């Protein structure tokens, strides 16, 4: 089914069967992180710092240990010594060493015979803190005199003379900015900020850990990537990697936030200290908000030049990203993707990765890209308004396409930005007349996607059905997509394939379900593994018929002679060949291992209509359209689900979600009441259009679709609000108090 043979015809790909994990999930049979238990299990609880920044002078756990039912207390002393780099960062984040670095930083943990006893016991641990000055704002953290989070944390990239909280520096570009701006009829400069937003997955982190004094352990946990968990836990505890087996549970959302560890090494340390008894640790919602990774916040300066007819002549951006108390804010993605939608000759980006007294940022759906898009797509919109140009036309005029050199270097292969813009332009939503206080916003976005280490197995069962094992946890319906791809490759019904997520002992290393890679990379691995099986199945048929294996073709689940010259034989079904497997040479399976790099990026364009109450500043989203390139939608419903989910999260980030810190450096809103994720009734049904510009690097043309969808909403919403109110907002989120204050200020001006 090669793509070069014209438009491929698919039998299973592109259909919408029920997901194989659906019944378990709607009946409550599916087992999530906190559903895993073991005989003799203890319960853990973690004591967290109430200070934003403090020296830990002494930890006295004697009263806790004296409480009946308490079996172990661990502190940093119970973890491995001598780590460096990201291993050290992760260990330090899971359990503070000399200093508590943010409100909610773990300082000690308890294992006890019940969850209530464990909770009571942590209150009995005495910690002597020496509070230190703190900083929770990115611009303040870079300014002279700001408290230093950790001296010597900066890497080689940081130029002399910057504050020690600047730990990475990134610069790239091409052309000559002065020349580019000189050609412009309009040059605009704006300052933009976005706040930290949490992934907001419904399932809090949870695990069950068992580790013996012999260094052998098992861990069951809710994660996007169990090989990552295994590596991180092994490092934090000083274990041999293969001695730890990690099995992922079902997962109630991750969005990037579950590609790292927070509690798993702690649970393992508690188990080891409690003589190898299994320990269950489950985070509360406020622990999730205080101590797991939200995304970075950003402070940005953008400058753009444009001709009267809307051609971008030059663009530059400075991005200051706050990733919490550790290096790792996604400043490289932010800078690299900032202007990637457009064909711009003169372009320059500067990025700073800045530390502060906030939790360690974690990946969040297209990490770094939404902030960059907020700057770029807002300034373009403002310029379009000033020049009296249509926002889609202006984007079409500058859009990248195949062969154009990207602002970040390489030439684009086939990509679908123009197709998404055109589909948005011709969609009904773009023509709906607007009423008073209503406005329409448009924005485009991009995510590179990813391949990564991938290993999969496909095994033929005795009855000719197929067991697929992949290493990427199923977050968004990927079991269904894997089964569809396997069904297509074998030519057998979807129902004859069962997809499993293997543990760390059953496959080679796999990267997590991140970077929108599962359907692309695991899918590719499943297809290749299936091809290996098909080759073996065909060979068995050839042997039975006594003909050359090359003279056998595979079609619709049957081996057939390739033509009259090959001989006249009844086609042999997969079930027939499988039934004779043992007597014809033994088990049949296929495997695939690689780090594929032919992932194709996905562009998207969003169109949103809002109404703003001019007396309260409250925004209502009236209609929302997502148009995005999926390459090939394997299971269109789950592709649409990704589009809608990305939009919903982006709308929340744009309107109400934010990390609010008090003067004391403590998080003010660590509950869902005040950390305002949109509820179902806040959003209209989100309309979707799937554009399919096939990825030449995947057998069926797949591009990852999971992340791009969160990139356009921040600017799309801000642009719509600007259209509705006539006031341009450059700071997110666009809460009613902020919007009302803006409307009032404009009136009084």
């Amino acid at each position, binding site marked *: 089914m090669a793509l070069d043979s014209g438009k491929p015809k698919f039998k299973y790909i592109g259909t919408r069967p029920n997901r194989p994990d659906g019944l378990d999930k709607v009946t409550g049979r599916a087992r999530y992180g906190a559903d895993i238990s073991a005989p003799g299990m203890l319960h853990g609880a973690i004591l967290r710092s109430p200070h934003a920044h403090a020296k830990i002078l002494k930890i006295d756990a004697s009263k806790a240990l004296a409480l009946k039912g308490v079996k172990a207390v661990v502190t940093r002393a119970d973890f491995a010594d001598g780590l460096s780099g990201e291993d050290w960062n992760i260990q330090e984040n899971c359990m503070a060493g000399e200093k508590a670095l943010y409100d909610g930083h773990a300082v000690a943990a308890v294992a006890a015979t019940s969850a209530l006893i464990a*909770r009571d016991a942590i209150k009995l641990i005495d910690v002597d803190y020496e509070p230190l000055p703190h900083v929770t704002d990115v611009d303040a953290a870079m300014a002279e005199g700001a408290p230093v989070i950790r001296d010597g944390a900066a890497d080689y990239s940081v130029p002399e003379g910057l504050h020690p909280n600047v730990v990475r520096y990134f610069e790239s570009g091409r052309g000559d900015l002065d020349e580019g701006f000189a050609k412009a009829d309009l040059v605009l400069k704006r300052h933009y900020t976005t706040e930290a937003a949490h992934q907001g997955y419904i399932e809090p982190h949870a695990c069950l850990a068992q580790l013996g004094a012999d260094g052998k352990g098992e861990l069951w946990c809710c994660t996007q990537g169990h090989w990552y968990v295994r590596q991180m836990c092994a490092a934090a505890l000083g274990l041999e990697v293969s001695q730890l087996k990690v099995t992922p549970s079902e997962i109630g959302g991750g969005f990037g936030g579950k590609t790292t560890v927070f509690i798993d090494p702690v649970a393992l340390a508690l188990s080891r200290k409690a003589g190898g008894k299994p320990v269950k640790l489950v985070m*509360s919602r*406020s622990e999730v908000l205080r101590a797991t990774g939200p995304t970075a916040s950003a402070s940005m300066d953008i400058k753009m030049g444009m001709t009267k007819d809307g051609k971008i002549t030059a663009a530059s951006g400075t991005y200051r990203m706050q990733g919490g108390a550790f290096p790792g804010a996604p400043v490289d993605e932010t800078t690299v993707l900032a202007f990637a939608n457009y064909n711009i000759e003169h372009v320059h980006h500067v990025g700073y990765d800045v530390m502060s007294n906030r939790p360690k940022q974690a990946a969040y759906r297209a990490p770094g890209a939404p902030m960059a898009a907020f700057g770029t797509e807002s300034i373009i919109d403002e310029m379009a308004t000033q020049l009296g140009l249509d926002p889609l036309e202006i984007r079409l005029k500058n859009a990248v396409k195949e062969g154009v050199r990207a602002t970040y270097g390489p030439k684009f292969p086939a990509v679908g930005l123009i197709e998404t813009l055109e589909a948005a332009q011709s969609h009904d939503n773009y023509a709906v007349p607007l009423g008073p206080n209503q406005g329409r916003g448009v924005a485009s976005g991009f995510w590179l996607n990813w391949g990564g280490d991938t290993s999969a197995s496909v095994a033929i069962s005795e009855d000719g059905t197929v067991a697929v094992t992949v290493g990427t946890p199923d977050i968004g319906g990927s079991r269904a997509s894997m089964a569809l791809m396997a069904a297509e490759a074998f030519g057998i019904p979807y129902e004859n394939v069962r997809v499993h997520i293997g543990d760390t002992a059953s496959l080679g290393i796999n990267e997590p379900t991140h970077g929108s890679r599962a359907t692309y990379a695991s899918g590719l691995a499943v297809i290749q593994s299936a091809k290996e099986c098909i080759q073996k199945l065909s060979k068995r048929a050839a042997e039975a018929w006594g003909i050359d294996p090359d003279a056998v073709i595979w079609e619709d689940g049957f081996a057939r002679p390739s033509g009259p010259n090959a001989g006249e034989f009844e086609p042999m079904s997969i079930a027939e060949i499988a039934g004779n497997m043992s007597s014809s040479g033994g088990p049949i399976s296929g495997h695939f291992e690689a780090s594929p790099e032919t992932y194709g990026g996905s562009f998207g364009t969003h169109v949103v209509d809002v109404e703003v109450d001019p*007396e*309260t*500043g*409250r925004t209502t989203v009236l209609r929302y359209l997502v148009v995005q390139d999926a390459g090939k939608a394997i299971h269109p419903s789950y592709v649409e689900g990704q589009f809608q989910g990305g939009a919903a999260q982006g709308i929340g980030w744009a*309107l*109400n979600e934010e990390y*609010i810190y008090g003067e004391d450096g403590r998080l*003010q*809103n660590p509950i*869902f*009441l*005040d950390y*305002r994720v*949109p*509820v179902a*009734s*806040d959003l209209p049904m989100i309309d979707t259009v799937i554009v399919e510009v096939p990825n030449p690097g995947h057998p069926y043309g797949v591009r990852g679709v999971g992340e791009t969808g969160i990139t356009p909403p921040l600017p799309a919403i801000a642009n719509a609000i600007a259209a509705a109110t006539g006031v341009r907002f450059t700071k997110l989120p666009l*809460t*009613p*108090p902020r919007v*009302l*204050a803006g409307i*009032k200020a404009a009136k009084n001006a």
Partner: protein
Amino acid sequence: MKYHKPKTFEEAAQIAAGSNGVTRFLAGGTDVLVQLRSDVVTPDDLIDIKGIDGTKAITKRGDGGWDLGVAVSGAEMMEHAELKRDWPGLVEGMDLIGSTQVQGRATLVGNLCNGSPAADSVPGMIAAGCTVSITGASGTRNVPVEEIPVGPGRTALTKGDVISAVHIPPRGARGGDAYLRFIPRTEMDIAVVGCAVNLRLDGDEISEARVVLGAVAPTVVLVEDAAKAIIGTALDDGALDALGATATAACNPIDDKRGTIEFRRDVAAVLAKRAAKIAYSRAKGGQQ
């Protein structure tokens, strides 16, 4: 922690009076149990009042007013067509609380006694002129609802006091009430500003009015100046502006994560005007 299930309010009051530690009454439990689970308040004595006769009753009195048992839930009020017809504002204030699940449990008295200045049912109760019966050591007394809240999380009830009933006055002719709250989202949020208006008409003119604001001061506030601003008017633009100005003036809000002082003052005026219009139209027989 001890769990009690008394059969009478006198017994409930005695248990509370005799407790040596923290006591909580268990009505719907949508505050008590949440606070227990999240380690905010762990009572030593938890006194469940749902075993007492009559606590689930909604009764129309001879004078046309209503008596509500203290365990009547929001959902039960919503399903009571006649109560809703009489006091739509009061009932919609209660109905705004939480989700369908919470509505099955949450009560007016629990909302009142939890003591939040942002409690959604309290402005409507005060605007309507509701009173509560309090059973205490010295017998039972009747107290206007506006006298119960004294500060965030604090009420005028003393140790051994339990509320034993809610009394709503008769609706009477040409009256209407309304409650509006401002939240950034559509559901599952806490009022940044709330406002209830209850009024009566004589011809086109307002003859009686009560205007109550929530979430803009340490307690829910009954704003007499706001009532004065609309009494004797047909709610013309001038009256509405005066109403807005008095509502803003009555605010004594804080700047916090939920809203700024300026925002709360502005929106108090907006909601007061909008709620007054709805109440006015209801009093005229409108079905809004």
